[in-house]
């Protein structure tokens, strides 16, 4: 029973945070500063979430660095998301045999 309450609070808070700004904001933002801020925000969020967390994502710093390098190189050549992501995992898996 207690677990059901936890789950309701988790889901409720998470939904409200997502819904309120998304549903209630109907005006277009005119300010150049705010527009620029929102334009840069996704790249900043993803970068901050990836570095340094990616180096701890495999349980071994060395294999994680190898996987990161593979992802960076393939992403630089504009390969599809899933190719980059799975190649990084394959590199980590292969490197795991040598570390």
């Amino acid at each position, binding site marked *: 029973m207690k*677990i059901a309450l*936890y789950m309701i*609070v*988790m*889901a409720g*808070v*998470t939904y409200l*945070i*997502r*819904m*309120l*700004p*998304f*549903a209630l904001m*109907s005006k277009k933002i005119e300010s*150049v*500063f705010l*527009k*620029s*801020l*929102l*334009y*840069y*925000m*996704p*790249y*900043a*969020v*993803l*970068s*901050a*979430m*990836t*570095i340094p967390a*990616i180096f701890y*994502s*495999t*349980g071994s710093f060395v*294999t*994680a660095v190898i996987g*990161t390098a593979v*992802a960076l190189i*393939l*992403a*630089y050549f*504009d*390969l*599809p*998301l*899933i*190719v*980059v*992501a799975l190649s*990084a*995992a*394959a590199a*980590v*898996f292969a490197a*795991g*045999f040598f570390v």
Partner: protein
Amino acid sequence: MRSGSSFLKGVAAGTPIALGYLSVSFAFGIQAVGCGLSFVQASLISLTNLTSAGQVAGVGVIASGGSLVEMAAVQFTINLRYALMGLSLSQNLDKRFTLPHRLLAAYGITDEIFAVCSTSSEPIRPSYMYGIISIATLGWVSGTFIGGFAGQALPESVTAALGIVIYGMFIAIIVPPSAKHKSILFVVVLAALLSIACRALLPGLSSGFAVIICAVVSSVAAALIFPKKEEEAAS
């Protein structure tokens, strides 16, 4: 374009997300069951939350018997970034996006779905977003289910390698535009450096809160140094 083909376009755009989610939620399923939840409860949490960091922290609160207030505070802090993302997405919605659609689609604002939607050049349609959300949710929930049910049987070398998948996807999203635009390269490098500094200097800071600080500081700096003109912002 009819809404049916726009839905399918969303499914196609969401497929890499779903595959990434499958491996991440697989790990979540293993962890949640390890914390004493059943794999059905774990899957239900994935279905109702659709978020990685918040769920991992939430299961931690459940496992340690924390209060409901603590649960709410943890979810609020870690997931606050979705409020910023929702605000950003609200600026580029098609006029078909009425309030009921917004109430429904808000469920699916995640880091990855936001990233795909926000790099869309045309205004976002409800059907496009539903396509992404449907396939991504399918991957997220089924991964949790399989991980919770059968995860312990997998060799550690495989689960370790799967840990990098979602970050590899993030890199694939941020690197190509960084190579083209100096301003994006600036914000990406600054956010990464701040994030490393937070981890090294403020180890007590939760990861959700650290992301908020790093993202706001670096995008404010970029907005001041490289303000986007109207025509550039549209590209």
